[in-house]
């Protein structure tokens, strides 16, 4: 029976496809899962010299370009706040940040993980707005993770555990309540899930 089953495809989604989703992408990829990552924002935003001067890029701008540009601007600052190391990590995972809303061509995912309720809302809204043609169910899980490097690393670990567990279950529809309840209890993180269709 098992050979007939395809492997699950995972999507990690955060706002800018830089920190949380990329950390999770990198971790899941390292553990051999079939994973992609996206951001739901209108632009890719990275912290700048102050709160009001973020570095804004279009989705699709290669991480390498951002890396070079920021290193030119203020190597000290961006090294200190962890942006340069993060970009370096990202460019070893994939070429450029991708936008969730434009990922139609990437095919169906089985599990979508978001890391913030706002992102979760946007993914749900986007799924509802799409024309549902394949009627294939997709599980969308939100794991609340703060947008900083430490939390992203911790969150990615939880995401990995969660995805591994889901991949091994026969039918996630039956198990999801228990899995979520277990993770909430063990990790003390708030988890939400919903179901949509492709």
């Amino acid at each position, binding site marked *: 029976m098992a050979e007939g089953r395809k492997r699950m495809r995972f999507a990690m989604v955060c706002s800018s496809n830089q920190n949380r989703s990329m950390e999770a992408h990198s971790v899941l990829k390292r553990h051999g899962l079939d994973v992609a990552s996206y951001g739901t924002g209108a632009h890719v935003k990275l912290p700048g010299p102050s709160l009001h001067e973020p570095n804004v890029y279009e989705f699709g701008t290669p991480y390498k370009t951002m890396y070079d540009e920021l290193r030119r601007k203020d190597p000290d600052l961006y090294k200190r706040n962890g942006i340069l190391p993060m970009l370096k990590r990202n460019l070893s995972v994939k070429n450029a940040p991708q936008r969730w809303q434009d990922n139609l061509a990437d095919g169906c995912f089985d599990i979508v993980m978001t890391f913030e309720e706002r992102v979760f809302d946007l993914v749900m809204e986007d799924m*509802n707005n799409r024309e549902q043609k394949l009627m294939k169910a997709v599980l969308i899980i939100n794991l609340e993770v703060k947008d900083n490097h430490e939390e992203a690393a911790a969150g990615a670990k939880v995401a990995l555990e969660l995805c591994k567990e889901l991949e091994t279950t026969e039918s996630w529809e039956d198990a999801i309540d228990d899995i979520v309840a277990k993770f909430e209890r063990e990790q003390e993180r708030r988890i939400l899930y919903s179901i949509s269709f492709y």
Partner: protein
Amino acid sequence: MADSSLRFDSSRALRLLEDVGTELSEDLVVLMPTLISFLRHADPLVVKKAITCGTVLIAGVLQEIAFQINSFGKVERWLDEMWSWMVQFKDLIPGLLLESVPVGTKTAALKFLETCALLFTPHLDATGSPGKGFNIVNIPRGYCRFLDPVILESDGIKALNLLLDTLHSSYSLRGALTITSINCLVAIAKKRPAYYERILSELLSFDPINSVQGAHASSIRYNLRAGFLGFLRSTNPSMVESRDKLIMALRGISPGESTEQIIRQVEKMSRNMERSSRDNFRSYKDEHPPAAEDSISRKRGSAVLVPEDLPSKRSRSDESDQSEANSELTPAGKMIAVIGALIAEGERGVAPLELLISNIHADLLADIVIETMQQLPKSLPVSSPRTQVPTGALMENPVSTGDGTEGKRDPRRDPRRLDPRRPVGPMGSPGTSHIQSQVSTDATSVDSRTVPSPSLQSTRLPPPLPFPEPNFTETAPKIEMKVESESKPPHDIKLTDVTETLTKEGTEIKTELESCTVPPPDSTFIDQDAVESTPDDHNSVESYRSSFQAENKDSLMEDASASSGELPVFPLCLELCEREKREACQMAIKRIIDGKSDSCLQLLARMVALNDPDDEILEQIQKHISVDFHRDKGHELAMHLLYHLKAVIIMDSSSAALDRYEKFLTSLARALLDNLPSTDKSFSRLLGDAPLLPDSAFHLLEELCGMSDGGTQKEREIDGGDRITQGLGTVWSLILGRPSARMSCLNIALKCCVHSQDEVRSKAIRLVVNKLYLLSYASVRIEEFATSKLLSVVCDQTLEMEVDQTSSRDVKVEMMNQEMSVTSSQSSEPGLSESESGLVLSRPSGPSLSQAQTQISLFFALCSKKPSLLRVVFDVYGKTPKVVKQAIHRHIPVLLRNLGSCSELLDIIYNLPEGSENLVTLVLQVLTDESTPPADLIGAVKHLYYTKLKDPVILIPMLSSLSKEEVLPIFPRLLELPLEKFQAALARILQGSAHTGPALTPAEVLVAIHDINPEKDRVALKKVTDACTACFEQRTVFTQQVLAKALNQMVEKAPLPLLFMRTVIQTIDAFPSLVDFVMSLLSKLVSKQIWKMPKLYAGFLKLVSQTQPHSFPVLLELPSMQLENVLTKHTNLRAPLASYVINKNIHPTLPSQTLKVLGLLNESQQTTTRPFDSGASIQGATLT
């Protein structure tokens, strides 16, 4: 089929399904049997995939059919065949939902149902046209036997019903299924607004927390919330209409700022929309006649269907305009059209018609009847036959005699309009008839809402009948007539006949009865009526019941013409004595409860309304309610009972009635608390909806909030804080929802704010401060209470001190009494003062620190919302005993960290109340702890220092932000402070602010210290030396460079600072490597004629002696007289100095006077007499 399923193992099946894909082609027809067989495959994955495949295909097939009809006017054969396979497939899906298959399969099936519901119901696009894709509106009727739009639509409604059933039967389901059904329903409601109201009412009545056990509740709540938000954002008129309901539901599901924000956003959006749409609407109105508009915008529109419309449509052969009419009709209008069409089919239409009617939702059916009734001839003698339901039992019941106007009431009116929580509520002066009407309308509406869609259970009873049933109490043939009329309501000629006969009877009975208030009961109701009214013996009840049930089932479920059972004729009415009545009633209730039927609720409610129940029955029912509260719709039943009991109270003013009400309510509430988890909202809902809240309910609430006495409280601790949260949550909702209970609830919340348990207190304070304090009607009372509590600890202790002084037991008692009167006069509520004084009495030895903290926590929490209250603290601080001060000191930092330096605080600092010096010092310390003080705060503190409070301590926190010019004048005052304080000040001065840098550099500090003139500045010299020592202790700050710089500056001063030499000595002690530098200083001093400054000179000499031989060059610089003086005083210097001169061979450069003092001149010149006998030294000199 089973064979073909066996032929495929899972992987092959999956591969095949993969290949089927989404493309529709002629070849697929061959695969359809296989696809259908996969629905029974052993591997759930195959089943799931097959359903998914079918979902895609059914849409594709219909799309293709629409395309072919539009393009060629006909459908190819293969497609026809394909469709007939699809119909087979479709009919198999509902069965899967009932079987025990994996949830994944069921979710796929739900999606299939959603797709069907969307495909099979007519829809209009934004422009109001049916659009290009598949739309049943575009399918000509009778085009092919499998594709009848009427049947399709009934299928669509059936699919919707199934989805709704799934949602409501989700007690035993998993979260994934519930969530999928919610999402599917939301999608349908959005895309098919005609069904929106129905779906919304189902979703609103769905309780996300308690309905699904074992599922992930917050996810379900989220999905429900997302659905409601989607509706809220929609511009569809019916969704806009229900905005208030949605907002209420949203607040219920997820109260909090984020929801409020979204609501505000939507409201803003809708205002803009309204403005723009008003103009559009005006122009639209000009173009369209009002009738058409009515039918679209109002659900229960007026004459949508003129009486002759239906037959003419039936007779006409071309149906082209029907679809057009359909699209403009209300759901009820559409259904009428559909039913009409089915009737026109004659024999062929019977089966679908039956199916359709059995599936129509109660609401919709009622609408259909109302609409058709409007078409009846005006000359009919009775205006609304719905209200004419004469029953024997009614006559006996004094409660149910209402006034005559009730006949005109819309029986489906929402009972919540009469809800006691509404501010203009009927609580104050409800008349008998008012309450009565509540009872009866409530029963009706619950009835119509809760009649479940019966599609899953073929044996279920049909929805409420639209017609009066006087015949049920009479003879069987009339039942048959009714059934006939029910199954074909729109058949106008027949309908009129029937109604005429009915109404004639109605009028007959009407003369017998005064009036009737009972809503249209469903057949179960009538069953019950019969049970109550006719038989006097248990056996006959049974026999009547069973025979009637059989009859009932036959007549309703099967072909109407088939039922013609002979029933025994019963007497119209039987008089029972009181005892018999009671026994019959008890028996009936027991049967109903044991029966666990779905209609239990309606029956019990009616029973209560009809037979004023005694205590025993109440207890019985109460137990029943609390056993399975949610499943048995306990809340609704409890409300029925409570409203009934309330009505009894109004009629019968004796206390017995009130007692009964109270007993029922409190015992039910207690049972809910005991049986249900603390997260359950039922308790809160019960108190919120009950018509009257007696004192005992508040006592119960207090107990829940932890105000009970010791024993029960300990039990409660097992539950942790959840119960308290529940109690406070209830208090909060009562305050919001029940204006009359506000004060009592507020008092409970306030009492909790001074509770001795931290957990209770902190939760209560959070509620009071964050929620209640924002309410205009509560804020004054809250402030009063908090202030009185603060003052009470202050006064309490003051009294206590006096007591100590007098140390007389009698006086103490007297004081206590006084104190009691103080507290009770401060609080306006008598109930509260009692317990407050109780609190006071329970601690006769004055408050401990924790008690004081308990009493004042609320006040400090309020200060964070209203900083001006802080003044009270400052005002009383001076009089406050030590313990309370300590408590205040603990609260202040927490408060200030939230508050920062606000204008109110600055005002207080500007005008500081007496006695609060320590407090302001603490405040300043906290304020400047982690951040630099703002300019206005500095200004205020300076003002305070220069006007009122001369204590430099208050300046210390500001020092880092002051400039050098500002610091220097106060430096002597700082020096006077105790050493610790001075060190703190020093640290601040050196720390400085980020903008200006330190006020003084370390070197400048040293100079400043030395600049102090003890006499002139009136500072003890000891303080200055201590300050110097303190500086030297900080080696990392006062480095050798700093010292060198400072000393360099000081040495240039005239006069030299008093402590200069002392510092130099300390410097050389601390940093011996500075010896060269010190020597250069000494040589400067020599040039300044240091010997003329006796105090310093002593130090100079000491240093010179200490630092030999480095100091020799300096010594040699001294004039010979001084040198001689030195050498006389420090004789030990002479020989080393002389030998130094000889050794270095510098005597030629030295003046002869010096050499002479050294005794070197004699030896070198050998001529003069030796002034000193210093053989030893000469010897020494020669030796070296």
